[in-house]
C-alpha cells in the first residue's frame, strides 16, 4: 500500500480535457467519493506525447515534460494522470531526470530561462493505481450501488501503462492484474480474448502517419473481443479512448463496416457501478452507445 494522499495535482494532458471531458469528470467524481481532491495544474501543457515528440526530438520532449513535472513540484503534490501517453511521458521523464544528473543539468538550464527548475520531488501516478493501491478494492466495493453481474468486459491496457516494465514497475507486462481487479470489484466478469495485450494502433505517430492502417489494428482487437462474447471494453488511456471510440466511426467509413462496440475509460466504468448516470460520466456524448445492461 502506498501512503494515503488526500490531494493530487491532476495532469490533464490534451485528449482528456479537450475531447473526452467525461474521463475528467468521472475521475474527479470518483476520487472525491473517497475523500481525494484533484487540483488543477495552472499552465500545464501537452505532456508531450512520448511516441510522437519522443520520435521527432527527444531533446525537446524531455524539457517540456520536465516543465510539467516542475509545476507539480511547485504545488508540492504528486501527479495523477488519466492517459497512458501522459503516464508514459511524465513517468519516464521523471525517471530519466532522476537517474541522469547531467541530463537534468541540461534540462534545468532551459527551464531556468523562465525561472523553473526540476527538483525530482514529485511522483507520477496513474489513476488506476491510485484506485487499486491507495484507495483499495475493499473501499471501492463498499461504494458499488449497481453490481454489474451480467456484464462481460474486455480489458484493454494500452501499452505505456505497463511498458517498459523496468520503468513502470507494475510487474510483468505479460500478466497484468490491476484493471482485471477493478472490473471484478463491480461484479462484472473480465473475459480473456485473443491478443488481449495488443496495442490499439494509435501510438508513436502511427495514427497520424497512416490513420486507416492504424484503424486495422483496432478492428482486429474489437473482432477478438466480440468473438469472446464481451459486451464492452474497459481501458485506462485517453488516447486509446480516442482511437477506440471515435476510431470506430472512422473505421466504419473506411472499411464499410458498422461497428458500435461500447468503450469505457476505467473511471467511467466504475462510475456506472457506483450509480452515476451516463450523462454525468459523459458516456452519452461518445460515438459508441452503451448497452442497456450498463445504463438501465
Amino acid at each position, binding site marked *: 500500500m502506498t501512503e494515503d494522499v488526500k490531494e493530487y495535482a491532476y495532469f490533464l494532458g490534451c485528449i482528456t480535457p479537450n475531447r473526452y471531458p467525461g474521463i475528467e469528470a468521472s475521475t474527479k467524481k470518483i476520487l472525491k467519493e473517497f475523500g481525494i481532491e484533484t487540483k488543477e495544474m495552472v499552465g500545464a501543457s501537452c505532456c508531450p506525447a512520448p511516441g510522437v*515528440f519522443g520520435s521527432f526530438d527527444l531533446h525537446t520532449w524531455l524539457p517540456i515534460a520536465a516543465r510539467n513535472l516542475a509545476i507539480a513540484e511547485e504545488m508540492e503534490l504528486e501527479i495523477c494522470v488519466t492517459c497512458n501517453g501522459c503516464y508514459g511521458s511524465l513517468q519516464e521523464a521523471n525517471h530519466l531526470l532522476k537517474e541522469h544528473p547531467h541530463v537534468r543539468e541540461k534540462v534545468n538550464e532551459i527551464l531556468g530561462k523562465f525561472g523553473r527548475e526540476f527538483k525530482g520531488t514529485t511522483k507520477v501516478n496513474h489513476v488506476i493505481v491510485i484506485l487499486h493501491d491507495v484507495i483499495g478494492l475493499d473501499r471501492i466495493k463498499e461504494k458499488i450501488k449497481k453490481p454489474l453481474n451480467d456484464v462481460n468486459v474486455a480489458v484493454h491496457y494500452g501499452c505505456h501503462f505497463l511498458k517498459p516494465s523496468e520503468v513502470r514497475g507494475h510487474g510483468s507486462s505479460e500478466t497484468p492484474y490491476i484493471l482485471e481487479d477493478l472490473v471484478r470489484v463491480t461484479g462484472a466478469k473480465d473475459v480473456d480474448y485473443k491478443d488481449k495485450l495488443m496495442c490499439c494502433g494509435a501510438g508513436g505517430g502511427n495514427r497520424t*502517419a497512416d490513420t486507416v492502417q492504424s484503424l486495422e489494428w483496432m478492428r*482486429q482487437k474489437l473482432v477478438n473481443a466480440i468473438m469472446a462474447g464481451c459486451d464492452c471494453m474497459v481501458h485506462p488511456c485517453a488516447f486509446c479512448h480516442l482511437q477506440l471510440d471515435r476510431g470506430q466511426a472512422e473505421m466504419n467509413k473506411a472499411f464499410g463496416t458498422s461497428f458500435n462496440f461500447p468503450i469505457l475509460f476505467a473511471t467511467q466504468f466504475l462510475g456506472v457501478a457506483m450509480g452515476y448516470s451516463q450523462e454525468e460520466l459523459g458516456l452519452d456524448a461518445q460515438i459508441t452507445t452503451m448497452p442497456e445492461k450498463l445504463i438501465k
Partner: protein
Amino acid sequence: MGTLYEDIVAYGGEVFGEEHMATLRECVQCGKCTGGCPSGRNTALRTRKLFQMALLDMREEIFNAPELWYCSTCYTCYERCPKGVKTTDIIRTIRNLAAKEGHMSVPHRMIGVYVLKTGHAVPIGPDQMKLREKVGLAPQPPTTQHPDNKDQLEQVRTIFKTTGYDAMIDFDWDTMNLRGMDKKGGKK
C-alpha cells in the same frame, strides 16, 4: 556525423545513457521482435531488418523507409528481446535522426504547430467547451491554451526555440503555421 550506429549511441545516449543505446550491437537477428510486432502483421515494418540495416550503416535507406513510422512504440519487442536490446528507444532515436535530416511528414509536423500555437497537441474548440460544461466542468481548464495563461504558453515556446524544434519543422512565426502552408496543411 559518424556511422549511423555511432550517431544513435551519441544522440540517444544524451537522454537514455550511451550503454542503453549501445545494446543495438547485441542484436543476434533472432527475429523475436518481428514475431510479436503488432505493426508487422499489417505493415512492412520488420524490426529485425531495420536493426540490421542500422548496423550496416544504411542511413539513407532507413530514413526513406515509410515503415520506420509504422511503429506504435508499444514496447512488446522491448519487453521480449532476449538480448536486452532497447528496441523502442533505438527506433525513436533513428526517427529523431531522420527528422533532423528533413524526413518528417506534413501531418507529423502539424502536431508541432498545434503545440506551438496552444501548448496542446490536441487543442480545444467551441463544441468541446460545451461538452465540458455539460459534465459540470469549466469550459476550459487553466492549461497553456487558456487565454489567461499566455505567459505559460510562452514558456513552452521558449523550449521549442531553444532546442530548434521550430526550425526543424520549418515553422513560420509570422503566420504561426508551417512555412508555405495554408491552415489545413495544403500548399499555398
